[in-house]
């Protein structure tokens, strides 16, 4: 079966090959499948990036409070959060956010669907990041916490200046995997009508009946994106390492 890459140069309405492969764009302009593919990629990047922000912020907070020494209630709440969000399948969570939450909580009825997906994906991943942050903090020798206390730091202070800087350095490798995961997991967004790469693959594959070319192109974009994240994180890992500390022995991975 010969591959026909020309399919990406076709106009999405007239189905004729457009010179230069790009449509005129704009609200009333023409659009080729290549335009659409790149637009879908943009949606994927947007969903993944926004979810990552939610996941990092919420995950760090939850992960940190789970290790607080004198607040068993907060730690318990953190544990409940993690178990709740990581024990429900991601697709089910997305459906809950999209179909159930707007009915139960009227405030969410007018929220853009993209944000609902970001909440679903972000909170799901936040549970996993919280677990990593907790592990990172608990991996530090107990003496570091005591040293911070001995310096006269308050609890927020010794977390901010002593524990968290080291804990985050330790967990960069699992965070890299998690960041790549969030990008790939964003493909579930197609199930609730976000026009991202997987949606494009299904729809364009059906319209053009050139599913193999379409899926190959989409796969390449996923690989490129995930690998780019890998490189960025490897760079960060290299830049932030503390010479002589255990977490700095491996360079990249």
């Amino acid at each position, binding site marked *: 079966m010969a591959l026909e890459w020309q399919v990406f140069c076709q106009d999405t*309405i007239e189905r004729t090959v457009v010179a230069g492969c790009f449509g005129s764009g704009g609200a009333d302009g023409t659009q080729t499948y290549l335009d659409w593919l790149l637009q879908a990629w943009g949606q994927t990047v947007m969903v993944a990036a926004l979810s990552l922000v939610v996941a990092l912020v919420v995950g760090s907070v939850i992960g940190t409070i789970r290790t607080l020494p004198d607040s068993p209630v907060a730690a318990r709440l953190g544990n409940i959060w993690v178990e709740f969000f990581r024990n429900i399948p991601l697709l089910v969570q997305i459906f809950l956010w999209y*179909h159930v939450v707007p009915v139960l909580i009227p405030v969410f009825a007018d929220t853009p669907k993209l944000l609902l997906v970001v909440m679903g994906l972000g909170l799901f991943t936040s549970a996993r990041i919280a677990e990593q942050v907790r592990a990172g903090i608990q991996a530090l020798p107990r003496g570091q916490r005591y040293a911070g206390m001995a310096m006269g730091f308050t609890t927020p202070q010794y977390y901010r200046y002593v524990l968290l800087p080291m804990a985050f350095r330790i967990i960069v490798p699992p965070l890299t995997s998690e960041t790549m995961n969030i990008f790939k997991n964003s493909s579930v967004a197609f199930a609730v*009508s976000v026009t991202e790469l997987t949606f494009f693959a299904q729809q364009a*594959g*059906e319209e053009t009946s050139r599913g193999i070319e379409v899926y190959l192109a989409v796969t390449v974009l996923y690989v490129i994106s995930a690998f780019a994240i890998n490189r960025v994180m490897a760079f960060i890992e290299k830049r932030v390492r503390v010479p002589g500390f255990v977490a700095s022995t491996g360079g990249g991975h």
Partner: protein
Amino acid sequence: MKKKYLLAFALSALAASGAFAQLNDTLAKAKAAGKVVMGTRESSAPLAYTLGNNQFTGYHVELCQRILKSVLPGVAVEYVAVTSANRIPLVQNGTVDIECGSTTNNAARQKDVAFALTTYVTEVRTAVKASSNIKSVADLNNKNVATTTGTTSVALLRKNKRAQNIKFNEVYGKDHADSFLLLESGRADAFVMDDNILAGLIAGSKNPKDFKIVGETLNVEPIAIMVRKEDAKFKKAVDDYIRGAIKAGEIDLLYKKWFLQPIPPKNTSVNLPMGQVLQGLLKTPSDAPAEEFNK
């Protein structure tokens, strides 16, 4: 040692070429294997759907059962559930010999597969809530319009959007049930899809009276049984049977059974009388692609 490999390679190549020769002759292949594989759909009621336990039924399934019984008497029929995405590759590579579901016959697909004479015609229309004041496509301005990912309706909506210069938000369900849920829950104001699917979903909903099908026909799509492209002999056998069935009134009978009378599993009726286009096609049977109908 090397010779042995060479021999094995030559033998497997010979076997492969034999399989190739048979791939283009479905009748011979089915007789040799003692079975013929029917590809069908799980939720395209009333054309083809499952009753559970790998049991399939529906208008096209029953028609195909009759065809296969006539052209391949005594050969066992094996059922394989296919999806919108995999049905064409599966027919091409020989996994499925005859696909009896809800496949639109269009020019793009005719490059890859062949279609039997058109046995059903679907008209793309709009389902809305009974209380809605949407009457035509022009009323969709600034509304949310649902349709299903991976269907021709998505491209159709795009086309209408530009041609009529109206603005609406598309929402995509991942399958028909999901799209209908969007309409039911109010996330979408209208659901644009093939009329038989809309009628089937409405008939199966909690309150069928809450919904209605409105508006002009956006597109006419001939739905046909799909077979392999290079196998003219098999296509002719299938076409001949269909021609005979049209003359004998068998198609009319099947249509009444599946579209106007109560059907399993819920024993409700789809209640969709035969449209003008299909009536015309039964007088002059044809396997023309959708493009011929929407000039």
